[in-house]
C-alpha cells in the first residue's frame, strides 16, 4: 500500500518536476543525506530507494514540527518518521530512536541542516550525522544534492510551482573511511565534509552524479 502511494508520488515528481532518481539504491541499508529547502525534499530523497524497500526507510524529522496534527500523521504514514526533539540540550539522547532504527537494519533519510532555512542557502550540517557514522562505520552514506528544488516551494510558499528539479546522488562514504582519514572523534569533520560535497554539487562543480554523461550539444 505504501509502495503504491510512493509509486504514484514518483510518477508525479517526474511529470511535474522532471525529477528522476536514476538507478535505485541496492544496498540493504543506507543513509541518504540531502540539502533541505522545501517540503518536497523528503519525497525526492525517498525516490532513491527501490519501491519494495520503502517500508524500511525512515525519515528523521523535528519533533516540534512533525510531532502532531495532520502533518505529523501524514509524515508518519508516508515516511515512518523518527522524531527528534530540537534544542533538547541532550544531543546523544535525542538520537537514540535513530540509533535503534539503524540497529534494526532500517535505512534513513536525513537533513543535517536541521531546517529548511533560506531558499538556496546551505546551512552548516549538524554533527549528529557524524556521530551516527562513527557509531555505524559500515553503513554507506549517500550525499545527495537536490538542485533547483528551492524555487518550487520555498519556506512560506503555498503552492508548489513547477521547475526542473535534479536529484544528484553523489558517491557514497562510510564512517570507516572518514575515521581512517580524520581519526577518531571526527563527527564535526564528517558533517563538514558531507556539507562541502553537497555544496559543490549544488554549485555545479564537483561530481555530476551517476546519470551524467548524457548531455547533448
Amino acid at each position: 500500500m505504501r509502495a503504491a502511494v510512493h509509486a504514484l508520488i514518483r510518477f508525479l515528481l517526474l511529470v511535474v518536476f522532471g525529477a528522476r532518481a536514476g538507478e535505485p539504491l541496492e544496498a540493504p541499508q543506507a543513509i541518504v543525506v540531502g540539502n533541505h529547502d522545501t517540503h518536497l525534499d523528503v519525497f525526492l530523497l525517498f525516490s532513491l530507494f527501490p519501491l519494495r524497500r520503502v517500508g524500511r526507510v525512515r525519515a528523521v524529522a523535528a519533533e516540534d514540527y512533525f510531532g502532531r496534527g495532520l502533518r505529523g500523521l501524514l509524515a508518519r504514514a508516508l515516511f515512518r518518521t523518527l522524531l527528534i526533539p530540537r534544542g533538547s540540550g541532550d544531543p546523544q539522547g535525542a538520537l537514540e530512536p535513530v540509533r535503534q532504527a539503524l540497529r534494526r537494519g532500517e535505512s534513513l533519510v536525513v537533513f543535517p541542516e536541521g531546517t529548511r532555512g533560506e531558499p538556496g542557502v546551505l546551512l552548516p550540517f549538524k554533527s549528529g550525522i557524524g556521530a551516527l557514522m562513527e557509531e555505524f562505520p559500515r553503513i554507506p552514506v549517500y550525499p545527495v544534492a537536490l538542485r533547483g528544488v528551492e524555487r518550487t516551494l520555498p519556506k512560506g510558499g503555498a503552492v508548489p510551482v513547477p521547475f526542473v528539479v535534479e536529484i544528484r546522488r553523489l558517491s557514497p562514504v562510510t564512517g570507516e573511511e572518514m575515521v581512517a582519514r580524520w581519526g577518531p572523534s571526527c563527527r564535526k569533520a564528517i558533517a563538514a565534509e558531507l556539507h562541502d560535497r553537497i555544496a559543490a554539487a549544488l554549485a555545479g562543480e564537483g561530481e555530476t552524479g551517476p546519470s551524467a554523461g548524457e548531455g547533448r550539444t
Partner: protein
Amino acid sequence: MLLFLVGIAGLLLFFTAVSALLRWRKASLAEEVSARTETWWFMVAVFMTAFATHRMVSFLFLGFLCFSALREYFSLLPMGEKAGDKTLSFRDRPSILLAYLTIPASLWAAYVRWYELFIILVPVYFFLLAPILFVVQDRTEGALRSLGMVSLGALFFAFCLGHALFLVNLGAMVLFFCFFLTEARDVVAFWVGGALRGLVSRLGEGTARRILSRPVAPTINPRKTWVGGAVTALLTALLARLLVPLLPPLNGTPVDPLFGAAAGLVIGVLGFFGDLVFGMVKRDLHVKDTGTLLTGHGGIIDRVNGLVFTVPATFHLFYWRYF
C-alpha cells in the same frame, strides 16, 4: 496512407540503426544523429497519436510538450531574492504559475475549437493579469524585468508552440506537414552545411568564398550561413511540394501545390531562425545547451526551437487560405 506509414517506419528504423552504429563506432556525428533520430521518433509518435486517436490525446501530448518547454525556460533563468538583469525573483512564482495555467486553458479552447479565445489568452489575458498580480504584490524594483522574462516564456512556449493544438484541429496531416518539414529542414541544413563547407574549402580566397561562408550571426552560431539558410529553405519548399499530394482536401478544397511549396519556404526560413533565436537566448544567459544546467534532463527547448516559429506561421497560412 499505409504505404506512407510503412515508408516512414522504414526510414526511422534506418536512422535508428545508423545512430546505433555511429555510437558503437564512437563517431563524432553520433550525438547529432542520435538527437535527431530521437526527435523523429517523437514526431512520429505525435503524428500517429493525432491520426489514430481522439484529439484530446494529441492535445495532452502537445500540452505536455509546451509545459516541458516552458518549465525548462523558467528553470534556465536563475532565481534570487530580487529580480536582476537576467534573474527572476522568488516573488515571480505566482505569475509563473499563472503562465503554466494558460496551457490547460488553451487546451480547453482548442477542444471547443474556440480560436478567438486562444488567440487572446496569452497575449491579452495573461499579459495583463501578470502586471495586475505584480501590483497586488506591491512590486516596484525589478517589475519590468520580471514581467519581460515571464511574458516572453509564455509567448514562446504557451502561445506560439500552443498553436500546434489548433494544427491538430485543422487536421492530423497538416500537423504532420509542419512538424515533418521543420525537422526535415534541420536534417537538410546539416547536409547543405557540410556540402557548402566542402565547396568553400576547394575555392581560393576571394569574393565567392566570402559570400558563401558569410555567417548570419557569427557570435551566436558561426556555422549558420546566409547561403546555407537560403539553399535549405528552397530545398524545404521543394520537399513541401512533394508532400502536397499527401494532404487531404481542407474544408472541401484540395491543397494547391504552389501554396504548399510557399508554406514549405516559410517553414524553411522560420525554422532556420528558430535555432538562432534560442541560441541568442542561451548566449545571453551564458548557457551552452538547455539540458545541461540540470544534467540528464533532455534539452526540450533545443528540440522545439524551430517549431516555436514554424507552428504558428503554418497554422495561419493554412487557416487563412482554406478556412
